[in-house]
């Protein structure tokens, strides 16, 4: 990713660019996500935010009501009212119903749509190379 200093003979009347700093490289990578389409773009932008929020909620509940109870509440095995901290557990329970299926559905949808759209991806020339009969 680093750029060498310009050659002396390029004739460009500019100061030499400095190497890309880590935060600049990260920012460029983040902005380049816009090149993706559909589900992949959603997963990397909104989907990742939703996943982080859900993970934060789960970890918070893990410390508040215990990891096993947090899991049980998130998948609907246990009522949040039956935990030691029902207020935060209710948030996790609702998120378990609304957010987790959304993320899982998006991942499954992306995998399926990728498999479907890339089904005929082998170039014809690869099967019958031009010089195969020689």
């Amino acid at each position, binding site marked *: 990713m680093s750029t060498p200093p*310009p050659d002396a003979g390029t004739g460009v*009347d500019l100061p030499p660019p400095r190497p890309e700093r880590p935060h600049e490289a990260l920012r460029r990578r983040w902005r380049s996500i816009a*090149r993706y389409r559909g589900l992949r773009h959603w997963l990397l932008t909104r989907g990742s935010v939703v996943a982080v929020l859900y993970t934060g909620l789960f970890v918070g509940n893990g410390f508040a009501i215990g990891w096993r109870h947090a899991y049980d509440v998130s998948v609907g095995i246990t009522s949040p009212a039956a935990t030691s901290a029902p207020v935060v557990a209710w948030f996790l329970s609702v998120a378990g119903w609304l957010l987790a299926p959304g993320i899982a559905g998006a991942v499954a949808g992306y995998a399926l749509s990728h498999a479907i759209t890339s089904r005929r991806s082998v170039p014809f020339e690869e099967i019958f190379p031009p010089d195969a009969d020689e």
Partner: protein
Amino acid sequence: MSNLIPRLSDLLFRHCGFSVPQGFAESYVKLHDSDWYRAQDHWERVVVRVLNSTAVPESADDEQAMRIAVTAAATGLHNSPLRTRCSLCVSEGRPS
């Protein structure tokens, strides 16, 4: 060819696989008082805008999308009134 938004220095000093008008990168950096950092920031923001626009066909994969957007953004910046002023600099309160 990388699928990331190219650096202006790569467009200027390297053959990085993108097609941009001759002299674009140099004039764009000069438009930003030869400040590579600010020029790169504004360049990336313009490319992102183009990537989110109808200039890129819905069916384009990530590599095609980036190639189309970089060419469209560079051509648009180079061949329009924006050649003599940067709208992002103006919006930031910089006389450009």
